[in-house]
């Protein structure tokens, strides 16, 4: 199996604070990884590094075979990031937002109607994003990520603010991504929710990957120290 993510001695500074401190991590293509750890551990920074949104201070990182230091634009085009904020325009309707991001994505994107239906927002396509509830915005943001058909899904607390039906939608979308052969990273505190979907569990603390646990389908599980 090819390597999707390879991070070696990665250091990322946020306001001179080392959010990632010589983090090592290797994950294969097609894997579903639960990224767990306390607040401030570096989970979000790791996802943003893999999305090409933050600069490596030192170390090396490749995403889908692309170097984070030199090929960030290509990486950004290949990943889908669900961030804590919806990253949608409040003055536009849900449909207009999705249409805009579809136009920017070009031929890679899928059907807007199908994406809205997938996240349970078929009836809200003509409603402005500003008028949506937090959970509905989250679903709209999920639809925007799904439309990109990313090879790497980076989901930051995807279940936050969602009702039970919304949480199921997230799980189903992750299932769709797995079926399409994508690699998925989910940073979450809802371990019981994500763990059944995961093939790997990465524990982060203090900006380093303390433990990478591989969960084979037998569920017996085995552990490996980070970076091996």
């Amino acid at each position, binding site marked *: 199996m090819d390597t999707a993510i390879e991070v070696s001695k990665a250091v990322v500074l946020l306001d001179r604070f080392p959010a990632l401190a010589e983090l090592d991590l290797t994950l294969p293509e097609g894997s579903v990884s639960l990224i767990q750890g306390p607040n401030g551990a570096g989970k979000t920074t790791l996802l943003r590094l893999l999305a090409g949104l933050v600069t490596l201070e030192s170390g090396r990182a490749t995403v889908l075979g692309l170097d984070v230091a030199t090929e960030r*634009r290509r990486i950004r085009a290949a990943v889908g990031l669900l*961030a804590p904020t919806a990253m949608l325009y409040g003055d536009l309707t849900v449909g207009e937002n999705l249409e805009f991001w579809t*136009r920017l994505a070009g031929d890679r994107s899928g059907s807007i109607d199908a994406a809205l239906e997938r996240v349970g927002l078929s009836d809200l396509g003509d409603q402005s994003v500003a008028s949506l509830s937090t959970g509905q915005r989250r679903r709209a943001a999920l639809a925007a990520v799904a439309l990109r058909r990313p090879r790497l899904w980076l989901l930051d607390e995807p279940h936050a603010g969602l009702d039970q039906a919304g949480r199921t939608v997230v799980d189903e979308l992750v299932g769709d991504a797995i079926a399409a052969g994508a690699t998925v990273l989910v940073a979450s505190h809802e371990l019981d929710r994500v763990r059944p979907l995961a093939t790997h569990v990465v524990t982060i603390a203090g900006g380093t990957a303390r433990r990478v646990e591989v969960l084979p389908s037998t569920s017996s599980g085995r552990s490996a120290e980070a970076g091996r």
Partner: protein
Amino acid sequence: MRVLWAIAEKDLRIEVRSKVVASQVLPFAMIVLVLFGLALDADRATLRSFTPGLYWVAVLFAAILAIQRSVSVETASSAFEALRLSGAAGWQVFGGKALAVAAQLLAVEAVMALGVVVLYRSSFDDPVLVVTAAVGATVAISAAGSLYGVLAVGMGVRDTILPMLLLPILAPVLVAATRAFDDGLGTAAVNGWSWCGLLAFFAGVYLVVGGAAYSVVLEDA
């Protein structure tokens, strides 16, 4: 160009919905014109002779608000990060944002032109020259403003710093646009078309530098 048009169309659609420029920037510009009139004691002859300068100072003030609005559209919802993730090239985002600001500014300037006719009793002796100068100056202002707007975001400084960054850069545009309007409005005997050439030069420089620099900012912001 598909991405550039999509970004410009998106910004204009947001303005149609929110009407921020129409309901806040334009009234502000008109108020500035009225205040200039009051400050100069409503002396029609003085107002007419100073119309080009007063007009373009008011346009610059309005432009700063329009540019801040253009930036806040992206930062309010973290959509700027989504733009970075879209894989769009820096020049495409820059071009789209600048085009939308230019379209909005031209609309504001058209209404302001009616304003100086009504308030200052000014007249346009050479409409072609006036329109050409307005387009050249607006492109220059929009290009420089869009670049400096995103630079302010990239540097993590407050948006109140934008006028301090932008106005010195736009001083040559203010001078050239005022001189061209002097000719177009018949308030001074100058060659307005030569000043239009200077405006075109600045517009070209700001477009090229903006397109190149925006890529760096989009990459590293």
